[in-house]
């Protein structure tokens, strides 16, 4: 469904510009960057996959993220590099979205399909374990802002404060997004479970 073909040449050009940029050829600096940033490649890629929901786009975004991170490594002052990498990746993904012609605007917090809300969840209902692929699918189906919050929290394991800094929203907003995201996820979970039961 996505745009893989047209954009790849542009990404390839970016790569070449990246390696030729003057400030990136200090070997000591490159070594520090390699040691600090490369161990987190899988996690950055995971976030990209969930944000963009497409392998080719995610790979391009991660590559672009690492090039930007290397270029701006001097500006990294913190002790935690993961949130810094995630923030860069998020910007790259936003740019990718805009290139695709999506509106870059955040969806309104209340612009959520009605089926997502289940005010009448049976209290005795048990949420059974599900296989990884089903959970991935359910997470991927969440609207952008909620998907992002739940992935940063449950899969990348960041604190509210770190998520708030990455998405540029107050901690309270992060908390309410997570609450909404989990409610939607629970609804999908229970719906899938019912479907499963019907098949028996």
């Amino acid at each position, binding site marked *: 469904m996505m745009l893989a073909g047209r954009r790849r040449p542009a990404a390839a050009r970016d790569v070449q510009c990246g390696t030729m940029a003057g400030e990136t050829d200090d070997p000591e600096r490159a070594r520090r960057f390699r040691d600090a940033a490369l161990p987190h490649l899988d996690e950055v890629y995971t976030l990209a996959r969930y944000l963009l929901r497409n392998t080719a786009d995610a790979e391009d975004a991660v590559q672009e993220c690492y090039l930007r991170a290397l270029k701006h490594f001097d500006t990294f002052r913190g002790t*935690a590099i*993961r949130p810094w990498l995630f923030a860069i990746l998020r910007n790259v993904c936003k740019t990718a979205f805009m290139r695709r012609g999506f509106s870059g605007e955040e969806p309104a917090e209340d612009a959520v399909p009605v089926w997502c809300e289940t005010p009448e969840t049976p209290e005795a209902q048990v949420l059974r374990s599900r296989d990884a692929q089903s959970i991935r699918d359910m997470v991927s189906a969440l609207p952008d802002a909620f998907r992002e919050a739940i992935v940063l929290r449950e*899969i990348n394991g960041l604190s509210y404060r770190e998520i708030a800094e990455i998405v540029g929203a107050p901690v309270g907003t992060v908390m309410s997004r997570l609450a909404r995201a989990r409610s939607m996820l*629970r609804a999908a979970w229970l719906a899938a479970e019912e479907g499963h039961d019907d098949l028996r």
Partner: protein
Amino acid sequence: MTCDEATVLLHALLDGELDAGHAREVEAHVATCPRCAADLRQFRQMRQAMSGAALGFAASPALRSRIDAAIPAPAVSTPRPAPVATAPSRRLLLKGFALGTALSAAAAAGVVVLMQRADQEQQILDDAVSAHLRSLQAGHLTDVPSSDQHTVKPWFNGRLAVAPPVVDLAAQGFTLLGGRLDYIDGKPVAAIVYRRRAHIINLFVAQTADLERGAARHATAQGFNIRRWTEQGLRFIAISDISADELQEFGAKIEVAVRAGG
């Protein structure tokens, strides 16, 4: 507290993000409200199911090498010095890495370079990082998986010359996962493993000749935070990718518990 407030705050409770006062309030509400209690139970089940499933994605080798190629190589095409003069523990360490993934190979290259300037302190930090990285590979985290301190502590009997303190910090949001034997600076050490949310913390404990209390020092290496201190003839090294603040909190709690325990 009303249900409306609790509906949102119970997520912060679930995530260990509430201070003690607010946590008590939410818990008090949940105790009297079946609706919110059911919510908390279901979200907890969901959370458990999610943390038990492998929801991450692995970067393809092609992507990894594309990125690797874009970062200038260290020590421009100079052949790396052969590790002839290295201690057995280091060879063992590198062998372990050789068995790992391309990522480990990249990390091992970093380790080789780092070891050329091997003052002992640096050596210990490097070993701690390597041991931590190795422990994160599948099946290497614990030799004795248990959240019970009374199972983990006796396991070290006869395996080490010291009895490492094993502290239960579950109430403070650090879950005990178990213990294993590891090697730092060529010597066997106890590795006690904790989890904070999705993050692993390795706490290495080894004997030291230094009987004085050594104040905590903080360091970072390869993007990991490290907190070191000595206490009662034991050297402690905590390492994790959680934030420096959280690791500081973890270390301080261990220190208090160790001192209180004797």
